């Protein structure tokens, strides 16, 4: 159905759209933490801080300049356990329709057919950070699967398991799914400009809900684009020089 009109020319990059959506999702937070190898969530978090004139606190792990921690690696997790981190980001080699995340391996655990680095902090942070935003820029049946091979962190827990956190949604290169924690199911919330419903359906390995009319993802405003390009991108370049060079053409070598 509604294919984009041929004259619809985007004046923003895919990464800028994703960061803009994530920054809106961050909302009214006091402290956002971003794990390693997460340039788009880092861009979004710094954008949110710029818009909020210094709020939220943003902790970019692995960057001494962009973390305030002085008590070693445990401080992040101790903070999270106390509810002092409001937003975190997780990706996965596989993500399934119940919000389960796999960062370990495909196939049998003892005899895997593929091995990823490992679970990092996911098996804990997913439970105790109120808003976990899932992101996976490769939206395919290989990554969005009916059932993950290995649960690094489950999307939901039984009522008697202490759980103050969990997924709020999943953003991909094609769309944004919101997550319903009661029903343990994703709902297609918006489709990015230039992408179609048919394409989302064909490339998603799990079942999801959708309204009769799925809106288009809101494009970043000129003001948001200006902030990202002029103010945030140079800051990001200190942590993710290669990403900043590729996306924003910031000429600073690693």
């Amino acid at each position: 159905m509604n294919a984009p009109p041929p004259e619809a020319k985007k004046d923003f990059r895919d990464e800028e759209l994703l960061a803009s959506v994530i920054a809106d999702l961050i909302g009214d937070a006091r402290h956002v933490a971003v794990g390693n190898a997460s340039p788009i969530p880092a861009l979004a978090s710094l954008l949110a801080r710029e818009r909020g004139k210094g709020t939220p606190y943003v902790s970019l792990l692995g960057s001494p300049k962009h973390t305030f921690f002085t008590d070693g690696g445990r401080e992040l997790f101790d903070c999270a356990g106390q509810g002092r981190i409001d937003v975190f980001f997780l990706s996965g080699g596989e993500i399934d329709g119940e919000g389960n995340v796999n960062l370990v391996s495909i196939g049998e655990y003892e005899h895997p057919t593929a091995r990823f680095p490992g679970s990092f902090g996911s098996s804990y942070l997913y439970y105790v950070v109120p808003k976990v935003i899932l992101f996976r820029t490769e939206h395919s049946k290989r990554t969005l699967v009916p059932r993950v091979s290995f649960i690094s962190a489950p999307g939901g827990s039984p009522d008697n398991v202490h759980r103050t956190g969990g997924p709020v949604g999943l953003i991909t290169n094609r769309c944004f799914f919101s997550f319903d924690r009661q029903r343990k199911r994703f709902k297609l919330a918006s489709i990015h400009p230039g992408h179609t419903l048919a394409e989302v359906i064909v490339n998603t390995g799990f079942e999801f809900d959708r309204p009769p009319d799925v809106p288009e993802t809101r494009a970043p405003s000129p003001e948001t684009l200006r902030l990202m390009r002029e103010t945030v991108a140079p800051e990001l370049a200190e942590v993710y020089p290669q990403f900043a060079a590729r996306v924003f053409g910031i000429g600073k070598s690693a």
Partner: protein
Amino acid sequence: MPMIARTLDDALSAIADGCLLAVPRESTGVGMAATRALIRRGIKRLSLVALPTSSLQADLLIGAGCVETLETSAVSLGEFGLAPRFTAAVMAGTIRMKDATCPALHAAFQASEKGVPFMPLRGLIGSDVLDHRPDWVVMNNPFGNNDPIVLLPAIKPDVTLFHAPMADRAGNIWIGRQRELVTMAHASAKTVVTVEKIHEGNLLDDPQLAAGTLPGFYVESVAVVERGCWPLPLPEHYPWDGEHLKEYAKLAATEEGFASYLERYVYERAAA
């Protein structure tokens, strides 16, 4: 008194075949020169614990056949990709993997530091990480009502090995804000440290330096090795050697390539 060793090999003599060796993550100060020296010595059957993750160090030790068991939360080369020898070893089943999650390792070291047998931790319940850890136990919170929680046994390493900016002649080590190195040293029977340089004077005499100092009381031996983290970074001193890590990632993709890397950069023979 800690030994200020004459040679790197002397300092490493406390690290024996088959020991439980703890090492830190790459952004904290990884003893890479020491790691290459251990491989040259032919160390075997290590139980390696990387708090809470590792990169080149674990990959090298695994590829060189030094590791029997690995406990960590992740091994990768970060922006240089997957850790090829780790990946190959897990797929071939040649190492025993104890998959963990970062805060579980921090907590298990803290248990050892306090001299208590275990530490409780939230999360984990319902994950396959927990399912594959028969040594982790779920019990009911004795102070709560129908509140299951995971208990993690203390990790008590035989030796912790890391690299730091400086030591004094009393074996006090300045670690700055890398506080998990203190936890690791407290938790371990012995701690072996390489440093960039010797600080003349006592680090504990200056309150500003003392706050970031691991007392020599916990330290077994120290060796001076300039650029001891290379090609990994020493935080606030020198960055990654990106070109070298790219070369490693390329060579280590195959066993033959990895062997030539060892010849050239570990055994320092003229090959490759």
